[in-house]
Every structure is written in C-alpha cells, then in structure tokens.
C-alpha cells in the first residue's frame, strides 16, 4: 500500500483511539480526521483505518456508505450545503440552491451533489441543519450562513476558494 499518513495526524489519531475502551468506536472520528486531511476517504485510507483499529475493511466501508457526510471521491474546495427541509423550504431554500447552480453553470434541477469542472465548488441539498429560526440556511465548508438571500449567495461564491 502506497498510502502515507503524516506523523502528526497519526499521533492525533492514536490519541483519539485512547478515548474509547473499544477501539472500533473511534472509527467515525478517524474517518472525519482523514477526510478533513485528504479531502475524501480513499480505499487506501479506509483500509488503513481498518488495520489500525483491528477491523475488517468492510467494517469501515459500511460506515462510509451509510453516513452522508463521508465521501469516497474528492469534491470542490468550497462545499455549499443548502438545507432543504421544511422551514428552509418555506423560506425559499429551493430558489437559493437554484441560484447557486445557475451562477455556477450546474444543473439547477439535479438533486445530487454537483461539482464545478474547475473543482472550486460543490453544491448540494442536505437535510435539516438545525437553524430553522433563521431560514434559509447554508453551510459553507464549516461556517453557517443564515437568512441567505441571493445577495448573500453571491458573496459566498465571490469568497469561494
């Protein structure tokens, strides 16, 4: 396996594993850390995790394919998650998502995550982000944007990496 993991990340993961009396429990936290570092979870990363935690690879793959936040392919540098659930929908979330898509030349009707060809943006609909009082909300990488109108959507795109 040509998979190389930086020493400091491995140390961080070793420390995380000590939080649990049963090592398998650390797998979600491992996958978060690996995804954060590499941008996605490669097969090599999944199998490395399995080896590290004394699991079979399937025990890791079944997590990656179950939990929506994990991905097996790289995505855009700026990830735009538009909440689609009821309160945001009532506040016009569908229009905001469409606005992002049109501005970026993506299919405004496709429901699945879409990435721009230059690898800058990924736009997707996600379920309730628990900020319904300031709908519609958009999670851009790790920061939450509230009461998002088209103007604010344009600013998000302008600031995108």
């Amino acid at each position, binding site marked *: 396996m040509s998979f190389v993991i930086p020493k400091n990340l491995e140390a961080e993961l070793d420390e995380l594993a000590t*939080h*649990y*009396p*049963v090592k*398998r*429990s*650390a*797998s*979600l*936290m491992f*996958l*978060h850390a690996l995804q954060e570092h590499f941008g996605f979870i490669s097969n090599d990363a999944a199998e490395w995790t399995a080896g590290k*935690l004394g*699991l079979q690879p399937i*025990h890791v793959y*079944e*997590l990656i394919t*179950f*939990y*929506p*936040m*994990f991905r097996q392919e790289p995505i855009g540098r700026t990830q735009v*998650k538009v909440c*689609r*659930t*009821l*309160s945001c*929908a*009532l506040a016009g979330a569908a229009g905001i998502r469409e606005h992002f898509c049109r501005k970026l030349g993506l299919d405004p*009707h496709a*429901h*699945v995550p879409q990435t721009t060809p230059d690898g800058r943006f990924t736009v997707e609909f*996600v*379920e*309730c*982000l*628990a*900020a*319904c*009082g*300031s*709908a519609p909300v958009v*999670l851009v990488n*790790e*920061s*939450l944007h509230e009461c998002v109108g088209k103007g604010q959507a344009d600013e998000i795109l302008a600031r995108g990496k």
Partner: protein
Amino acid sequence: MDSNHDKQIQSLLCYRYTIGQCGTGEKIERKSIESSIAMPQELKLILKHADEPGYGPDIGCYLKHGGYETLKKALKAPGRELPDGKKLSAQEAFRGDVRTSGLRGRGGAGFSAGLKWSFVDRSSGKPIYLICNADESEPGTFKDRQILHKDPHQLIEGMVLSCWANDVKLAYIYIRGEFPEGARLLNRALAEAREKEFLGKNILGTGYDLEIWVHRGAGAYICGEETGLIESLEGKRAYPRIKPPYFPAVLGLYLCPTIVNNVETLCHVKHIAAMGPAEFARLGTPNNTGTRIVSLSGDVQHPGYFEVEVGKVTIGELIFHENFGRGLKPGRQLKAVIPGGSSSKVLKAGEVFSLKRKGADGQMIPVDVPMLDLPYDFDSLQSAGTMSGSGAVIVMDDSRSMVDALANLAEFYAHESCGQCTPCREGALWMAKGLHRLTHGGGRKEDAAYLTHIAQNIQGRTICAFGEAAAWPVLSFVEKFWEEFQARGEADAAARTEAGSGANSNLKPYSYA
C-alpha cells in the same frame, strides 16, 4: 403605576420565584416585573446569559457568572437521612431530587429523567456510561445549538453532576457532524474544565474521577434515536436496537448500563441542583415542570428560540404574541401548526380539542379547548393527539400547500430511514414517491387513500420510533387536509384525461439520492 400595585406584583413574584434562591447565585428574573402578570413571556433559566452582550463560551466568563459553584457544593454535600431513618448517600439523594423535580426529557419523548436514571442496572458490576445526545436534527429544532455554541460549560457542569450522581466514570457527548464549530467549542471547554479540576482525575479533590469526550456524528438523523446513537458510538451503522432486551439502562453502550440524555435535559439537572427540586417543580405546571426552549420557525414575523415555563404559554401566544412570534405575515391567515418537530402530528387552524380539566369541585371534567389555546406542554399536546416532542413549532399560513409541505417532509424521512426494517425503508420511499408524483403533475384520485394505507402499515411495525415519525406526518396531514390532497390528485387525473393520455409523460422520475 401606583406603588401599591407595584408592591403587589413584587410580593407575588417573590412568592413564586425568589423563595428558592440558593447560595449559588442562581437567580431567576422576569424581563420586566410589571408586565409579568399580564403578559406571557420568557423565563430564562438555561439561556439566562447566553445572549447577553459580552457573554462568551470560555470558562473565565462562566466562572464569573457563578459557574461550577453548584458542582462544588453538590460534591461536598453530605448524605441525607429520611424521616423513616433510612440514610441516603449524597448521590442517591440527588437522584431522588431529579425525580421529584418532575424533569421530563427535552429530546422528544418527554419521559421522566429521574425515572430513566432509576432504571439503571447498578448491580451488574459493569461500568455505567452516560451519553449526552447532542445530535440535534429533528426538523424545526435549533435549541441545543444555542447551548452548545454559547454556553458549553453549563452543559458540562450538568453532565458532571449527572455522572457523579450515577457513578459514571466515562461519558460522551455525541454531537451531530454538521456542528463542527460546536465540537471545537466543546473540546476547548472540556480542556478548560480539566485544567480547573472540574473534570479528570480526583475532581475538586473529592476522589471522584470522570472523563468526557466529544464524539462526532456524520449526518445521519437516526443517530438521535438513543439505541441508534449507541450503535454509532460503537463505530457501527446507526441501526437502532430492539427493546427488549436492549434497554440502554441495562444493555447500552458496550452492553453496559447507559444513560442517554438530551443537552437541554442535562442543563436542567444543573438548575435542579442549584434551586432544589421543589423550586424547580414550582416552575411550569404540574407534571410539566421547569422551563423549556421552544424553537419557532416558519411563517411568523419573528421566528426564534424562546425559553418559557412549560405550559404557561399557549400555542396561540407563541405564534401571535409580541414577545414571541409576533403574528403571521401581513394579510395571511393561519393554516397549520406542526407543534413538536416534524415527526409530531400536524394541528389544523380552527381545531377544537376536548381536554380533561380539574373543575371547581376537584373532579376532572371535559373542556373544549381551541387549538390556539392549547398550553404548550407535554400533556395537553398529547391529549390533543400530537406531542410537544423536541419543542419545535413550525407555522404555516394560508399561502402554503399542505401537499407540498408533506412532500418535503416525506423526502426527509425517505432519506433518513436507516434501512433496517422493511416497512420503514420501503414505505418511507413509497410515500415520498407518491407525494413527488402528486406535486409534479402526476397525481391520482386514489393517492390520498394510498398514502394513508402505506403510513398505517409502517407505524407499529418497526424496531424504533422512526416508523411512527415517518408515518404520523402523513397520517395527520392527509386526514386533516383530505380535500386538498384529493383535489390535487383529481386535478392531475382530469388534466390527463383531457390530454388523452393515461400517464403524465413529462413527469420526471423520483430521483433523490
């Protein structure tokens, strides 16, 4: 105002709110004494400081506001002797206090927190775990977010107290993956608490050891279900466990006795310790004690979160009162209210419920209560055939289509079903597909009955309550707005007949990944 009146109000407030002040600086204030009698308003216990300018999530700020004083006092408390001569340890006594406070779980089920603690198997010899459920993801709910982001130390203090009372040495905060900032803040707060000896080995020199770790979810709603959460914390898919035998209090995390409590519930534990159970129980209404944070969203002028005494404010006041929702958008009429998160059954404007109330002679008599006059508490909403669930109120006005709203929710449940039980996995998807058809020009006359039929075959036939959560919105929306569903299907069918085709060739297939 005349001073006599002023005095009257103050003495009333004294009676209700200040007697129970204890030495920890815990003080309850109304926003304005003057208006407290006439107006329904917030009473901030948990969110007392959260939104004050300059109040931050760091330990210095928390300590400055009397933070961890309750913990210090509780850990030093002696045991208690009961009138019958029975001696209780300090922990036993506090567990009893939580029970007599009447605290009910704020996560959704509204189950007595003290009773839940009392189910813990303390004789197995296995370690007891406590998990804070911070997987806030019931659509409409955004209350735990406020605590996690603005006052994480309050949660930690509540957790340490709860862990101490239950002999827990290792606890976790399971926070949803979409709260990365919350996870960071919690990790920092835990490190600060360790440094000050509120956490770790030999807490405050008492010999009590406790460690709390943050564990992040990864976008699955089902992790909010306590046994699903436990599976997820064990590093597996969040497939809920069947009860019996897997009651967390007996066979929870690593098949050890486990307590799973919501963020808000654990914060209340701190306030019960600070105020005493009797004083806590004086807040709210009988069997619905304390305060709770209501998340208000949808078609109101002023959406937001409001901490109120349970049952002291009605649904109508939450929507229309100046201190809360401030009414609907101009020119709009109320159509429907989802009272306790998207899984609760919808309430229709104008509905009247027959509730049992205590009459003058002490007998329970049935009283007609219009929907807007329902007190926002656990029992009244249950009597009205729904639930206050996670405390999330979603308001819809007459510009909204109930068919579209339900289609949105059905899509949520189809996406979030964990897939373990066939009726839920398939049924949730069928309902979403049926509603997709109905909202995209492909409806049929029989769709309203079809949706009800599927929902009825899901509820009660699944391992966990997700089956009901997915079925109840469909059952209640279709039943209460039958004509609207029927009309949509008939209109589509008529349009097809006119066009001379049996099926709608323009209808895009349901494609939610």
